[in-house]
Each structure stands twice: as structure tokens, then as C-alpha cells.
């Protein structure tokens, strides 16, 4: 891999990290969930904020091989996927702040972040729900003879829901252009997935349906990139669905207000040492990229996100009347 590509991947991961760190701070004082009392400080980001901190390499390593016209469905942890697919961080932040200028006009928030203009068809509040939607989008691309593909992200926990089986089977039956990406952070909300998943795990299920799969170290962005690039080329070549199992780690709790105390602190510490940003920075240094170059990337990401925060804070709220828009056309005259 060229240094340039690794630098691009590092830059993207750093932007994702900066975005989520900022969103986390902006969410403090938010929902009184997880047994914690709400603080008196009003939160700028309200509601559940699912962070992908530590998992950036999967979003970056897969999306770097996607084209703008390719489509993507995501999980409840979708900020990284959305940024990696090419969305604008300010409009994303506006959405997290619930502003009218957000991608979803303030109707979706973090859990439903989406940018259809770059093919990002939405984060989803329902585990595994993106899988059938991705297969359908891929089916449409095939029927319409469009040379694009769909990337379908889901978590390790999602593999235990029915739509996972239905979607994988469907994609293979019709040889659809879809890359399934299991972003395996080894935990499902607060429960270790290996205590909940029978058999040999998710890629064994793909193999049972004869969907070729690769398993990678999901913290190593180069490894993800290489595996994803290969699988995406095969999907693009008309080979039917492929499956990428990327094993990674979530540094934080399930949602921003969850301290994640149910996790072994040593395991968390070790994971942070082996995290994707450190790993990539180490590789860059080893290849002779100067510390100064890396620091500049870091500060550019920081500046971009600070700008996003300012834009979002200054942005207007939706009008109450917008609550009645974007529901149905047919109902417009008669409803009320």
C-alpha cells in the first residue's frame, strides 16, 4: 500500500474520531438513561448517541474502495460509515443537534444519520434491519443494470436475528452485488456476543450459504482495506455477494452515557493500545512519515469538527409545522 493511501485512511479515521469525541462532549447532560441522572446542563446532542470509537478502521477501510454511486446501509452506530461515504461533517453535526439544516431536517438524529446524496441510505434504530434493505437495493441495481454495488454494515449481534439469514440467503440466490460487512466489536450492547452466538460464528454462517468470506483484523486499516478492496472487486465483477468479518473493539459503552463498567478495564486498556489510530500512526512513522505530518492531520480534523460544532450551534431549529411534512402526499389534504 502506498503511503498516500494510508495517510488518506488515517485522515478519515481521525475525522471520524474527532467527530464522535465532539459529539460525545456535546451529549453530556443528555438523556437520563442507564441509571444516570440527567445533569442540569442541557445537552446539545440529545438522546442515544452510539459511538464507534475504536472501530474507525472498518468504516474507513471498506468505504475507501466505494464509489460515490455505490450505496450503503448502516447500523445504529453510523457516524463513521456516513463520514467515510463522503458526507459533510457540519450537516451531520446539525442533524445530531436536531437542527433544520441537518441531513434529516432534525427528524432523525444520530441513530438515523443519512446522506442519500452520497448513497448512504441511513443508520437504523433496528438491529439487522439494514440487511434486507441492502439486498433490495442491490437487487434494484442488478435489475436496472447499474454497475454499482451496495455495502451493508451490521454488528456481530445482528447475526442472531432472522433478517440476517433471510438477507444473506436472498443475496446469494440472486447473486446480488452486495458486500456484507460484519463489524464485530465482540459485544452486543452490553453482552459479550460469544456467549450468545452458537456455532463457529458469523462467517461460518456466510460460508454455509456458499458466500465467500474473509476474516480480518478490523483494527488494522490496511488489512481491512486490502480485504475489502479484493472482495469489492469481486462483487463489482459480478461474482455475487461477499462477506467481510472484521474483528474490532468498541472503546466506549453502548451509548455515550453508558460508562461501560461491565467491561474488564484491562481488556479495554489493551484494546486502546492496539487501536486503529495508534496502529496506523505507528505504521506511518515506521515508513518515514514525520510526526509533524501526522500532527497536522490531527489538527486539521480537529479544526473541521470545531467548525462543524459552531455551524450546528448557530443553526436554526425546525419549525413545528415541519412535523407534518414528509409523511404522505396522499394524506396531505385530508389529514388534520
Amino acid at each position, binding site marked *: 500500500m502506498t503511503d498516500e493511501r494510508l495517510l488518506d485512511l488515517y485522515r478519515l479515521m481521525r475525522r471520524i474520531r474527532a467527530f464522535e469525541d465532539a459529539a460525545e462532549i456535546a451529549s453530556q447532560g443528555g438523556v437520563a438513561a442507564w441509571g444516570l441522572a440527567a445533569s442540569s446542563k442541557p445537552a446539545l446532542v440529545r438522546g442515544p448517541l452510539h459511538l464507534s470509537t475504536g472501530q474507525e478502521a472498518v468504516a474507513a477501510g471498506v468505504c475507501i474502495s466505494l464509489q460515490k454511486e455505490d450505496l450503503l446501509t448502516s447500523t445504529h452506530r453510523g457516524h463513521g460509515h456516513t463520514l467515510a461515504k463522503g458526507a459533510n461533517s457540519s450537516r451531520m453535526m446539525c442533524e445530531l443537534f436536531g437542527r433544520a439544516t441537518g441531513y434529516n431536517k432534525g*427528524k*432523525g438524529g444520530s441513530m438515523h444519520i443519512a446522506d442519500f446524496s452520497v448513497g448512504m441510505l441511513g443508520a437504523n434504530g433496528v438491529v439487522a434491519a439494514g440487511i434486507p434493505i*441492502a439486498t433490495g437495493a442491490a437487487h434494484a441495481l442488478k435489475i436496472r443494470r447499474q454497475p454499482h454495488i451496495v455495502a451493508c454494515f451490521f454488528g456481530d449481534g445482528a447475526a442472531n436475528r432472522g433478517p440476517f439469514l*433471510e438477507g444473506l440467503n436472498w443475496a446469494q440466490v440472486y447473486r446480488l452485488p452486495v458486500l456484507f460487512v460484519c463489524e464485530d466489536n465482540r459485544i452486543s450492547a452490553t453482552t459479550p456476543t460469544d456467549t450468545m452466538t452458537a456455532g463457529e460464528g458469523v462467517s461460518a454462517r456466510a460460508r454455509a450459504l456458499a458466500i465467500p468470506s474473509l476474516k480480518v483484523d478490523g483494527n488494522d486499516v490496511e488489512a481491512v482495506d486490502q480485504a475489502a478492496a479484493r472482495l469489492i472487486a469481486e462483487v463489482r465483477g459480478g461474482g455475487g455477494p461477499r462477506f467481510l468479518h472484521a474483528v474490532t473493539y468498541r472503546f466506549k459503552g453502548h451509548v455515550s452515557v453508558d460508562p461501560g463498567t461491565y467491561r474488564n478495564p484491562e481488556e479495554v486498556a489493551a484494546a486502546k493500545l492496539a487501536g486503529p489510530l495508534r496502529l496506523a500512526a505507528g505504521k506511518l512513522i515506521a515508513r518515514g512519515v514525520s510526526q509533524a505530518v501526522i500532527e497536522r492531520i490531527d489538527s486539521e480534523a480537529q479544526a473541521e469538527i470545531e467548525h462543524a460544532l459552531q455551524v450546528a450551534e448557530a443553526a436554526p431549529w425546525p419549525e413545528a409545522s415541519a412535523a407534518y411534512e414528509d409523511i404522505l402526499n396522499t394524506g396531505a389534504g385530508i389529514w388534520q
Partner: protein
Amino acid sequence: MSEKMTYAQAACLALQEAMRADPRVVALGEDLGRGGVFGQYRGLPQEFGPERIIDTPISEANIMGAAVGMALAGLRPVVEMRVIDFALCAMDEIVNQAAKNRYMFGGQGRVPLVARMPIGIWSASAAQHSQSLEAWFTHMPGLVVVTPATPQDNYGLLKASLASGDPVIYMEHKELWGLEGEVTAGKEVPLGQARRLAQGHDLTIVTWSRGVGVTLQALALPALAGIRADVIDLRTLWPWDKDAVYQSVAKTGRLLVVHEAVQASGFGAEIAASAAQETGCRVRRLGAPRIPVGYAQVLENEARLTPEKIAGAVHALLAQLH
């Protein structure tokens, strides 16, 4: 020019015309390659091939979810759920995905799909193949709900649904598949517009789907001789034609809502309450008792809407003081 055909054939004709006119229209569901379990796709697989009449695995969640994805990626899918009872395996895809997409993503996405899910008692098929769950979907913002009662309406409403640009829950009735009637091709039936079948000053009867035919039979019974009713077939349950109902009850002062679905929490409650609130009319509902549909004839009959039950409800309403 009109032609005699069945309710099933009328829908088939509508779909065929739409598929000829628009290459984005596709249909997907189990056994569509055989023309559908009720013959409502007969001939279409031969004309349009397996790429547009898609035979699917028994994967209801994925059938609905894929249709959402197809719609987002530029197709206009028609989803076949076989019977509404199986749509329950795809509730997330209908309620959380199809219905919410446009709103939740701030209008970025549109989900123009038609989900066909036949309702109603299917003789001797018992509790899991005979439900009428239209109220579930009228409750859900983001969905259009359509219940055609005649071949002409099944043609015209399916055409309108395909053109609507939003997710449409399209409920044919299993006992109407064979119903014959004149169908004028090209005749549009707009969504949200009721149809008045009879005129009278004594009361208003609002119904839909198979309730239409049973109501007309009831009015022909000697027990209702001399009673004149405004009979309204709603045709579309969401958006429902409030103007037509309110205008009629403003004249008659009495409203009976008749449906085959279980009465408790049925859509009749919505119409009755809205009309009473708006016009002060007297209201009465007739639906099924809150029992699953039984297999044995005597059990099934308990759940079945009959002309006699309607006649009884009409008399009860006319006798009601307020």
C-alpha cells in the same frame, strides 16, 4: 370500453398495464412465478420474465425489506405477502422501515411501494389465515391503506397506488378474488375518495371490502324493508374520506360502521368517534367479536359478517335514543 372480469383479473390487468408503461415496476413474493397463489399475477411471469416478476424465498422480512431497498434504489416494487397474516413476519420492515423512511430521513428517501396483503376470512383456514388487520396499518403514520371492494376498484385503486409515491398497504379480500364485474380499463379511482352505493335518509352505513357486498345484501332483507340508508364504501382507509362521511351523517344523523375485522379497537371506532365528535351523530359499530377465527363452520360463523347481523345492528341503531 369495459369488460367483464374477476377481482383478481382486474388487479392483474392493472399491474400488467403499469409494468408495460414503466420498467421500474417489478413484483416480488413467494410463488409469483406460478402466477400467484390466487392467480392474481397470472400471465405476468410469461410476459415480464423472472427479473420483473420475482419468485422469492419464504422470507417475508426480506421481501418487505428488499422492497424498501429497491424503492430507495429507484424501482417501484409490488410486494406480495400472500395473506396479511404473514405480513406480521415483516412488521419491522413495514412499520419501522417503509413507513418511517421518508419522515425520519427528512425527505431524502421516498419509498414508493405497494404491499399486497389479502385480508378476510378464508373459509376453513382458521385463525392464522383469516385475519383483517387493517386497523394496525391505519394507526401508522406514513402508510396509505387501501381496501378495494369491486373489480373496477381493484383495477383503479391498484393503478392509483402504484402512482402514489408512498408505501401503500393494499388489502384485497380473499373471498372477493372470484367476484365478477365490469372493468373499464383506464378508469382511474383516486385514493382517499369514497363511493356512495345507495341513498337514504334513515341512517348512514360506512363499510369497505367484503363489508360492501354484505351490507347491500342486508338492505335487501325483508327485515330492513322500508329502511333507506346512505351506504358508503370508503375504498381507502387512510386517508379516509371524512367529507363524504360527515356530509352523509349530517343528513341522516345516524352512523353505523360495518367491518369484518374484530370490533374492539377496530378502524370503525376511529370513524365513529370522529363522526360523533364532528357532527354529534348517533353511532354504532358492527365488527367481529374479539375471538380468533375458528376452523369448524360453527366457530367460523361466529366471526363472520352476515346480512342478518347488519340488519340487527341497523335496528339497534334506529332504536337508540342517543
